């Protein structure tokens, strides 16, 4: 339940960064209003006013007070609505979770985007980079169920949304993400079993259609 407060998310349905925030709010059982931004037609005044530095989604407003940057927002949600906790209680476990969240945040989506919004040699190069990153994640997951260990947590929330873009990356990069990375595959399935994740993550086919539209818009495809 909302902790006596107004919770608004300036959102875009295909953005993995926005999905992170929605999943965190769902995990905590917090009611919120998601307002779709028209990123191509014209960003809202509220967005531009609340995020003057980056002018991007997601923007999270709690009782009118804005927060930007998805990992910062997820951390805030975890600290404000404390149950269930998204981070382990001990400092070292928390540091490990933050390390993985940082790696994933810096690397994963950029690599996916570079694969799907390119062509020819650039796509090949981007695909190599994505495969290297997925190898690191495969190794990092190891025998654990989640990046957080036994329980779904902070690092998993940061990572899982980018996976709905893997179908598009696979089709456009001509490779099979899930076949080549069995541990990541298993982890994706486990995450998607969670209601908070399944109800937020869009159908990868819809993401693929969106990507095709963006490619046309950017002149990558005719």
């Amino acid at each position, binding site marked *: 339940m909302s902790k006596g407060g107004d919770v608004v998310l300036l959102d875009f349905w295909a953005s993995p960064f926005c999905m992170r925030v929605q999943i965190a709010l769902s995990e905590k059982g917090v009611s919120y209003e998601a307002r779709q931004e028209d990123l191509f037609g014209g960003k809202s005044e509220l967005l531009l006013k609340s995020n003057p*530095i980056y002018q991007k989604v997601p923007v999270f407003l709690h009782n009118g007070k804005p927060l930007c940057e998805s990992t*910062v927002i997820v951390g805030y949600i975890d600290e404000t609505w404390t149950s269930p906790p998204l981070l382990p209680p001990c400092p070292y476990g928390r*540091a490990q979770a933050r390390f993985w969240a940082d790696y994933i945040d810096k690397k994963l989506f950029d690599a996916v985007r570079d694969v799907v919004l390119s062509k020819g040699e650039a796509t090949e190069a981007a695909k190599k980079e994505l495969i290297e990153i997925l190898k690191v994640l495969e190794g990092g997951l190891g025998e654990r169920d989640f990046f957080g260990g036994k329980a779904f947590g902070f690092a998993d929330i940061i990572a899982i949304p980018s996976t709905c873009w893997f179908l598009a990356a696979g089709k456009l990069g001509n490779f099979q993400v899930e076949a080549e990375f069995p541990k990541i595959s298993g982890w994706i399935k486990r995450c998607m079993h969670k209601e908070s994740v399944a109800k937020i993550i869009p159908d990868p086919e819809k993401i693929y259609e969106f990507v095709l539209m963006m490619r046309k818009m950017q002149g990558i495809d005719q």
Partner: protein
Amino acid sequence: MANEVILLDFWPSPFGMRVRIALAEKGVKYEYRDEDLRNKSPLLLQMNPIHKKIPVLIHNGRPVCESLVAVQYVDEAWNDKSPLLPSDPYQRAQARFWADFVDKKIYDIGKKTWATKGEELEAAKKEFIDALKLLEVELGNKPYFGGETIGYVDVVLIPFYCWFYAYETCGNFSIEPECPVLIAWAKRCMQKESISESLPDQQKVYEFVLMMRKNLGIE
């Protein structure tokens, strides 16, 4: 249990300096080891196999990598004194936002002020000053970003101050006239032993930058 703390670091690294400052603020005794980045130690490669970078904080044999992660770890593991992050969740989130801003902007753009020329240099100087001005607005009239005492954002940003002389000299510009409030903040920080003892002399940093410019073939 014995508290064994080792920091794998490189003396001019602003990222390493952040962890030095955090440890000093908490009064933690640690062993400092300077790495030769052209010949990284087996310990560094073992403790940070993914990035192979410094700083790496090793606490009782367990590594913590990435400076922002390490500073937060130090804050939480030694939580008996000098809290770096505020207790209010919204203020903590704001502190993390600004630390992330520093990470996104200051190092990369700062590097362009000594590693580029011509139009690229001019654009970098403008972007750099603009970023510092945004930080000035965030600081406002507080003595520190953390308020009355040093906080997370102060620890994250102040290391770059010892690089300002190198940026200004190589890039041929002056920061103080554009950002007097920020420079006043930096000088105030340098009054604190935990900071002044953790930052190298700006002249040494400048000489290091000149050597890097030579290695990169920048005249």
